[in-house]
């Protein structure tokens, strides 16, 4: 008998019935009854934007046509010199193309190789990482990132500025709706991360400070039909 | 907390005086009786009563608690409400007696019936009898001088019985009585029965903060509907040399209705 058997045997001995799964808690019922969900896409954009800003993120709402040039201008204004991104996403390619054409001062660092080959460089020399969120959650001001070859985990984590694009139509009302509509449980990525602002801490005398270990700054671009055009 | 549904006013009630009031604050028991009678209810005080069993129960001596509680349960044969001038003892009878006797085929159901019939005094006056204290006050010939009071609600009264609102309602109904706020009002005074004996330092620190907060509230006196808290706060204040007067809520209300300024 090993530890596993002993632990499980002890737990089993203590239970009157072997399987009690049927009395499952009514999670769906709760969220149907208790959550005032923002109905329209516009309302969701507004809520997401407001909460992200309250969490110290900068938010740009832009149209499909205009976001890339607006972002390029903003990156220049922020003094971003070295930007890591993955060009396997449409928006990643678009941004890379725009930045290359603009002959500005931004150096592009494609995240297309295993982290081991450039770990120190990533930690020490990259100013910003550009990511495309898989979806977002209005109720908590949250972006959702699912790891994949095109979505390295550290791109939203290691550079001091995290630039994230989210498409307005992917914003869910609340977390339960996101998990349900996207069927998270059916196909979990190796890493699903929900991000609700730049990294922070209140560990010193309950005083809020940003930029603990993750990004110090977060810039979110919400691409929406109703966004600002260039 | 589940919202309690209250019965119509009865003709007669039992008064359960509690062991602390019995020995240390007996006038509070008499004032509870007067308030009930003033509201037109006949009061029966079973002479065989002693204690709800809480001291033994909370200190982990279930068997003793059961023996003492069972002795009380035999006293309330009529179908009358049992009114208790203590949130703590009322909470014991209403919430813990059924648990204590859950496995007992005879006393278990009996405990449940009694639990349903148990009411804390202020709760009973406000919710069941719906006493109009302002009107009673108006009948009194002398108007007592204005006074500032701080209310201390015991933890059981607040969290088990939900009767803080009733204490407040009673005091607010009395002309000339101004309620003053104290800091951290919801925090325990540190009595906790045997806690004050087993961990005197912690309990002492808690009551020291409590008396300081009450004094800083600028009240003329403190009222509470629980004798345990009153003894704790009152005797601590006395030990600290503070001129803080404490009084059971029942006595305070009865006195104001009589038009007396000082007890």
């Amino acid at each position: 008998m090993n530890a596993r058997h002993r632990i499980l045997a002890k737990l089993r001995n203590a239970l009157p019935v072997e399987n009690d799964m049927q009395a499952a808690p009514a999670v769906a019922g709760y969220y149907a009854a208790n959550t005032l969900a923002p109905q329209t896409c516009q309302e969701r954009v507004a809520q997401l934007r407001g909460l992200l800003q309250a969490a110290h993120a900068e938010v740009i709402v832009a149209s499909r046509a205009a976001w890339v040039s607006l972002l390029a201008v903003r990156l220049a204004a922020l003094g971003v010199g070295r930007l890591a991104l993955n060009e396997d996403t449409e928006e990643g390619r678009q941004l890379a193309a725009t930045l290359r054409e603009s002959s500005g001062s931004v150096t592009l660092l494609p995240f297309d190789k295993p982290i081991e080959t450039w770990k120190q460089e990533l930690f020490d020399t990259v100013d910003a990482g550009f990511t495309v969120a898989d979806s977002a959650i209005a109720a908590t001001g949250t972006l959702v990132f699912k790891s994949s070859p095109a979505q390295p985990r550290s791109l939203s984590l290691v550079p001091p500025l995290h630039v994230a694009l989210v498409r307005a139509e992917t914003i869910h009302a609340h977390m339960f709706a996101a998990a349900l509509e996207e069927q998270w449980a059916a196909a979990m990525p190796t890493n699903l991360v929900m991000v609700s602002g730049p990294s922070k801490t209140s560990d010193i005398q309950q005083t809020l400070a940003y930029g603990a270990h993750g990004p110090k700054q977060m810039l979110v671009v919400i691409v929406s039909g109703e966004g600002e055009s260039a | 907390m589940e919202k309690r549904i209250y019965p119509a006013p009865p003709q007669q009630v039992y008064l359960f005086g509690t062991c602390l009031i019995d020995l240390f604050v007996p006038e509070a028991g008499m004032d509870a009786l007067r308030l009930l009678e003033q509201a037109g209810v006949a009061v029966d005080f079973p002479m065989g009563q002693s204690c709800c069993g809480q001291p033994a129960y909370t200190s982990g001596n279930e068997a003793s608690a059961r023996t003492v509680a069972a002795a009380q349960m035999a006293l309330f044969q009529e179908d009358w409400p049992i009114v208790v001038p203590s949130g703590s003892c009322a909470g014991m009878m209403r919430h813990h007696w059924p648990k204590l006797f859950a496995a007992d085929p005879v006393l278990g159901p009996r405990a449940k019936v009694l639990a349903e019939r148990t009411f804390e005094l202020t709760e009973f006056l406000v919710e069941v009898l719906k006493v109009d204290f302002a009107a009673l006050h108006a009948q009194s010939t002398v108007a007592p001088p204005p006074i500032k009071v701080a209310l201390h609600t015991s933890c059981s009264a607040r969290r088990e019985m939900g009767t803080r609102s009733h204490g407040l309602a009673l005091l607010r109904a009395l002309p000339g009585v101004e309620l003053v706020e104290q800091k951290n009002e919801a925090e325990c005074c540190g009595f906790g029965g045997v806690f004050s004996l087993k961990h005197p330092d912690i309990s002492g620190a808690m009551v020291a903060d409590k008396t300081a907060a009450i004094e800083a509230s600028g009240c003329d006196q403190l009222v509470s509907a629980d004798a345990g808290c009153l003894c704790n706060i009152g005797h601590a204040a006395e030990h600290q040399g503070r001129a803080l007067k404490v009084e059971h809520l029942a006595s305070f209300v009865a006195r104001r209705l009589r038009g007396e300024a000082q007890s």
Partner: protein
Amino acid sequence: MSTQTTTQPLQFHPSADFKNRSREALADTKLRQNFRGAMDFLRGKRSAQFPDENELENLRDLGEAVRKHALRNLPQLLEKLETQLTANGVQVHWAETAEEANAIIHGIAVGRGAKSVIKGKSMASEEIELNDYLGERGITCVESDMGEYVVQLAHEKPSHIVMPAIHKTKGDIAELFHEEIPDTPYTEDVDELIQIGRKTLRQMFVDADIGLSGVNFAIAETGTLWLVENEGNGRLSTTIPNTHIAIMGIEKVVEKLEQVIPLASLLTRSATGQAITTYFNLISGPRRPGELDGPREVHLVLLDNGRSQAFEDAELRATLQCIRCGACMNHCPVYARLGGHAYGTVYPGPIGQIISPHLLGLDDTRDLPTASSLCGACAEVCPVRIPIPQLLIRLRTEAQRNPGEAVAHRLKGQGASYSLGEQLVWKFWTGAYAHPSLHRIFRWLATRLRAFAPKQQMGWTRFRTPLQPAERSLHDLMAERKGNRL
């Protein structure tokens, strides 16, 4: 195979002298002020998160239902979790004791030739005192949560399960950083202090061989570890090093992903008064082919360490509903005055008082169950409705039970507070209060001999004037009113 045969985890500091430590803590004015301020702040933050009482109560009902459901199905959920995690490429280990858990983690480290471990926050690793264990064997553990880092730098223990350095002021930390971190000027600016911590720890994420983390919730159906944090150190620890080892108590598993959503909401709102934390980090496996980062190996250590003792008893099982938000300590009048260190256990405050006896046995924790006025503030805020006062009373019963008495579920250290003297007192009390004729004599004596009431009444008179019975009892007054003879 029972807990009685397992060795006492010696790594815990004994909590036997709780009373001395609490006296010291109470006398420390600065500590008292720090905690008072912090508790008031956290209470305010929490209550601001729950403006709608109905929503709060409904959510607590749901949270309780989720946790109870998980515990009712615990063995099969653990097996399901193991199956799913294994299918996802995660290696699952089981540890009955702290010693076993440490040995498993050490074994993994040795197998990888690891020299250094970067740690995300993990109370389970505090519980097994992993840092000391690995340190003694030449492997360095560095805490990366800012609060844990401060505590480690000061060679202390966390004083709170969510905010480990809550007992320290920024001045304390300024001094600590100035003295312990080379070339660090003294500064009380919190932003600067955090940046110092960030800079000092950053290279360690790059260099560490192993990242170690705790787990907030584990999801059986998907084989997912759900981690909650604000700083990003948890993500870095579980993303950058080649090997990630997670450690969690066996009670933390729930059946479905959707069931964690209400728990996570309750956790962040109850703990720090946040609607959500910066990161919810859901880990379901190591780096897959084609992925460019993430650990190549993920391990999960499932820790019992006394939890199954609580599980065995239907009433005490509720202890394991806990999601470690710390709201009970934030609202506890005892914790607010003592702080966490006085408890002498890894988990302080009300949750510590009910879980520690299972982890350590009642012999070492006998004073914890009684260190409560049973005010109920903890149960009032508990997001999963653990009846903490009820469980404290139960532990008092078990601590006072005759050590020789045979019971269905014997707790380690049964009868640790058994005292013949106290039993006699209760016997006398029971006699006096259960028999009206004896009670009448007792009342008569108490009132007539009131002048002889002792001036010293145990602990009572250290802080209060003595209690003295009234001249006439309520019974006397009632008898007079009735015109009855007493």
